[in-house]
Structure formats: C-alpha cells, structure tokens
C-alpha cells in the first residue's frame, strides 16, 4: 500500500526570480516613455508664484517659454532680473525675433495656437514683464500663460 505514498520534501521551494528582469523592464519602459527631458538649461532662478485658478497647459509642443528672473550665477551677472530665451540671456528687443523663429519652427496649421508661457520669478518687478508683454503684442503673440504653481487650498 505504501507505493502511492510520495516522497514529500519538507523544504519550501525557492521562488523563481527569472521573471524579475521582465518586471523591471516593464517599469523601465514606463519611465522611459513618460520622461520629458528638459530642453533648456535654466540660467535664471524662476520661483513661480502660486495661484488657485490655474489651467493646465496642453499641447506642450505648441508652447514657447520665456524665463525671467535673477541669474543663478549672481556673482558674475548680478541680481537684477534678466530675460532668458533658449539657453542665453536676452534683452527685450530680442523677443520679437524669438517669437518669429518659434513660429517658423511650427507647422503652418498650428501657428495660431502657439502659446507663450511666461515663467517669471515671483520677486521680479512688473516693469520687465510689462516690457515683454508689449513686445509680444507687437509680435502678434497674443496667447500668453502666466506660469504658476497650483496652491493647495486648505479645506475648512
């Protein structure tokens, strides 16, 4: 009768780790696809102000950025707020050319949807921002977005 009795091993079998690389690869691909690499290196500090009535900026390919704030290397460039376009410091008169170039880089059908996002440091004075806005008006870039962080409202 004992011929049906199996030899039961007492040891717990080791968990197979052969599918571990697959799981990790799956995570890896997820992060690779969702990652957006920064295109420009910031040379000005932009600590954005906070607001509650914010809207999401859709279609990132149709957004051109203008950064305004005090230079990060304040020992060399001082603490006065400067404008950054692409990777370089710029002056107010460069903005019209920048807008034209940005417009030219886009598909003709998409040009009218081009939004200019102003990433401005909160401590910056409005003078330079007003100048930039005037230049944008001259360059017919009317859609602008004041970039702000979303303020979390405490529930009472």
């Amino acid at each position, binding site marked *: 009768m004992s011929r049906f009795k199996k030899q039961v091993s007492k040891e717990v079998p080791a968990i197979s*780790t*052969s599918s*571990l*690389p697959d799981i*990790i*690869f799956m*995570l*890896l691909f997820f*992060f*690779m696809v*969702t*990652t*957006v*690499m*920064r295109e420009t290196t910031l040379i000005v500090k932009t600590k954005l*102000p906070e*607001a*509650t*009535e*914010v*809207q*999401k*900026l859709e279609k*990132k390919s149709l*957004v051109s950025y203008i950064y305004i704030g005090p230079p990060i290397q304040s020992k060399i460039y001082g603490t006065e707020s400067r404008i950054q376009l692409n990777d370089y410091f710029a002056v107010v008169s460069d903005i019209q050319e920048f807008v034209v170039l940005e417009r030219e880089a886009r598909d003709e059908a998409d040009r009218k949807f081009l*939004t200019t*996002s102003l990433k*401005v*440091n*909160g*401590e*910056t*004075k*409005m*003078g330079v*921002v*007003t*100048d930039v*806005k*005037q230049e*944008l*008006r*001259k360059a*017919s*870039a*009317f*859609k*602008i*977005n*004041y*970039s*702000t*962080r*979303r303020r979390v409202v405490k529930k009472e």
Partner: protein
Amino acid sequence: MARKIPAINAGSMADIAFLLLIFFLVTTTMDVDTGIMRQLPPPPDPNQEIPDIKERNIMNILVSRSDRLLVNKKMGNIRTLKYDVIDFMSIHHDDPAYPEVTLKSIDYIGDVYTTKGIISLKNDRGTSYNMYIQVQNELAAAFKELRDRLSMQKFGRKYNKLINEDYIDAINKAVPVRVSEAEPEDVGGN
C-alpha cells in the same frame, strides 16, 4: 566537432535593468505646467479714437509700487477683491452706483441681462510679479464664480462641468472676461 555554446548567465540582467530604472526615476519630472491663461490685446492703433466709456461702467484697480491696492480710489484688500469684483459685475437694475445693464439674446440661453462693466487693471513698473498674479488670480476667481452662477441657473451644473461646447460658448458670451489692462506708464505712489 561542434562545440556547445555555453548559456549566457542572465542573472545580472535584473541589476542592469534596475540601474537604468533608477536613472529614469531620478531624472523624471512629473510636473504638469499650469498657469493663468490670458489674451493680450493687439497693439493700439494711433488713428483709433479712445472709446468713451462712462465712469460708472469702470472699476479701476490700481496696484502700487509697494504692492498696495487702490480700488476705485479707495484702499482695497486682496482678500475682499474677489467679492468686490463679483458685486460690481453682477446685474443691478437701475442703480447708478453699478454699471449699466443691457438685455441680450444669446443662443441656448435666451434673453439674459449682461453688464456693461469693465475692470481696468493698472500696475506700476515696481509692482512685484507675485502681487500682480494674486490680483489676476482673484479676478479669474471672480469671473469663474459669475459664470458658475449663470451656468447653475440656466443649465443646472457648474461652468467647468459643462460638456456641450455650445453651452460653454453661450456662457462665455453672457459673462465675458472684461479685464482691460492700461497702457503701461509710471503711476508711481508708495
């Protein structure tokens, strides 16, 4: 004589994948760009005449160099600004203290009273951007509230919960964001 190719040890594959994974984890920024959308007016035409707007239709908001508010020549407060704007832009029939109202016929809503009020925003060159955004934020909140009210009244749901594009258009027409920014100049003040 055919030699057997030894199987490649795949045990370290997981480690390599982990390494890459951690790199992407660290470099990923998940933040979405958010902000306040605004439409700039076209540059002023020198031949164009300045439109004559009645005093009672304008709410003047002035932000001084030291980030203080002046609302219709009185000291204003950022906390009450939203309610001041809502009060000003609401419909008040035959009240000379408030802007004029006109009856407008809009598709999907029908006849509705709209205000002729305009918010005029002026800031100094020395105003901080933080303060300017706070004011813009309060104005946006006020108009959102006004749109919510009309939308609740007409369609029974809030403005940002509306799905039908025509309804959204109708509300936009009935409650336009009428914020006029003055041509920049040094308004001074402390």
